[in-house]
């Protein structure tokens, strides 16, 4: 990934723009919201050099923000799945915020002007729809059949599901209406989504999440004898490895840290202290 961008240097500014052709929804919203719609059970977006994360806004069901290797798509790619049938709306967060592309029809999905390349496809049970864009305006879409998903490899279903849970937990923290003490600020929310997307991309097990209040989100992994904490505020990523003996490691990354942040997150994949993802939250009898 290139350097000298905002945030934690994980995504680039996507600068997604919506052109409006063949899409039912209105033009891009002022808050830069990317919204893809379609039928099927899996939606995939590949975005060169940019992290995208998704959630399913209806029924509070999370959609997955997990990257996978796509055939020839290039760049960072994500797969978003959802359990519902019929038309589904996906919202994608980019480095520059949230971008809406609208609700496409079943045949022609998008007509977007993007920088850099967007490659996305929505496979259905018996086939799929592929739409591609590049740095210039693209007004056409292909609708090839995708059989059995042999053209690409998906991340494990558990990994995808676990990051959907994380996304939902972050969304819950951002949407708390009656608890101002714990409702996280929007810049913190967006930053936490970016970090979550980067962790998912690097195939790192889902962390648990908590907050100190509105100004930060903490991702936590617990090992046998040590804990790893990533404290995400709007302008810092603080790293702590703590054990009963003391502080084992502590550092911080700022928006200027560039590739160091990326290298650090990449290194997490091989760190022994990261335990398997915790089990899902389930309600108790209250």
């Amino acid at each position: 990934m290139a350097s000298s961008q905002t945030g934690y240097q994980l995504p680039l500014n996507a600068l997604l723009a919506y052109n409006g052709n063949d899409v039912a929804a209105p033009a891009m919203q002022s808050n830069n919201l990317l919204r893809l719609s379609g039928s099927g059970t899996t939606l995939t977006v590949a975005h060169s050099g940019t992290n995208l994360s998704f959630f399913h806004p209806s029924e509070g069901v999370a959609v997955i923000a997990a990257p996978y290797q796509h055939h020839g798509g290039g760049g960072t790619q994500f797969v978003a799945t959802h359990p519902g049938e019929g038309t589904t709306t996906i919202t994608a967060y980019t480095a520059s915020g949230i971008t809406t592309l609208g609700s496409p029809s079943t045949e022609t999905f998008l007509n977007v002007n993007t920088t850099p390349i967007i490659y996305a496809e929505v496979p259905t049970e018996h086939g799929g729809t592929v739409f591609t864009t590049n740095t210039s305006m693209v007004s056409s879409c292909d609708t090839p059949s995708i059989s059995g998903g042999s053209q690409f490899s998906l991340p494990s279903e558990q990994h995808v599901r676990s990051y959907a849970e994380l996304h939902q937990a972050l969304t819950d923290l951002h949407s708390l209406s009656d608890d101002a003490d714990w409702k996280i600020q929007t810049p913190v929310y967006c930053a936490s989504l970016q970090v979550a997307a980067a962790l998912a991309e690097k195939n790192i097990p889902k962390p648990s999440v908590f907050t100190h209040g509105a100004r930060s989100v903490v991702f936590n992994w617990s090992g046998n004898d040590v804990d790893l904490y990533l404290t995400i505020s709007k302008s810092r990523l603080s790293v702590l490895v703590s054990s009963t003996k003391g502080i084992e490691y502590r550092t911080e990354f700022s928006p200027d840290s560039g590739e160091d942040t990326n290298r650090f997150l990449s290194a997490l994949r091989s760190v022994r202290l990261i335990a398997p993802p915790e089990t899902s939250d389930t309600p108790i009898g209250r």
Partner: protein
Amino acid sequence: MSAAISSDDNLFRGAHHPVAFQRNVFRRAKFMKLYWDANTPRLIEASFVWDRYAPTQALVHAYGCRVSSRRNRRRPNDRDVYCGAYHLKVSHVRGLEATVGLPEVATSDLVPQIEDNEVAHVNCVIRLRDDADEDSIEGVKTVIVARLWNGCRGPLTHTCHMDTDLVPHPSNRLETPPLGMYLDDRSVALRAWCLARYWLLMLARKVQSRYRAESSL
């Protein structure tokens, strides 16, 4: 007053549902909630129960149940459930200011502060250095929570009488800290002394308050 609290003294921190939970999963940061004022971000506070005035587990739990009861009277539609308490030593709190890798903490101490007529309540007051980078304070909070959590033992689970209708009780979801379960390793003689001191202190307090009441008439 602070000098009255010995570094060997014991502290307890109550765990309440839903305050210490997030989506019904126990969260250590919510359990070890730190308080601060936006105008004074370098002053961080937290509440504990001092064993000088709660020398038995029964008294610690009674304190927790009273707190829960008061919260439920204030917010009857948002039921608070006391789930138990975690133990840590005063030295763990005071040790924050000498923790290697945590230079931002200038002082960390405990101040007895009667709250809601609870004499066992003590306030943990952590002051960060003036030159501590404000953008880093969120990360410092994580370090503080982590260090305090690493000093905890427990949980000492408990079901208040008013919560016996809850099946399962959320105390089942409390997490065991790295140091493991709490074991009251005080000798029988020391426990007896602590209990006698407690009753004497309570008696003295009662006499003192009665004297004040009579003096004001």
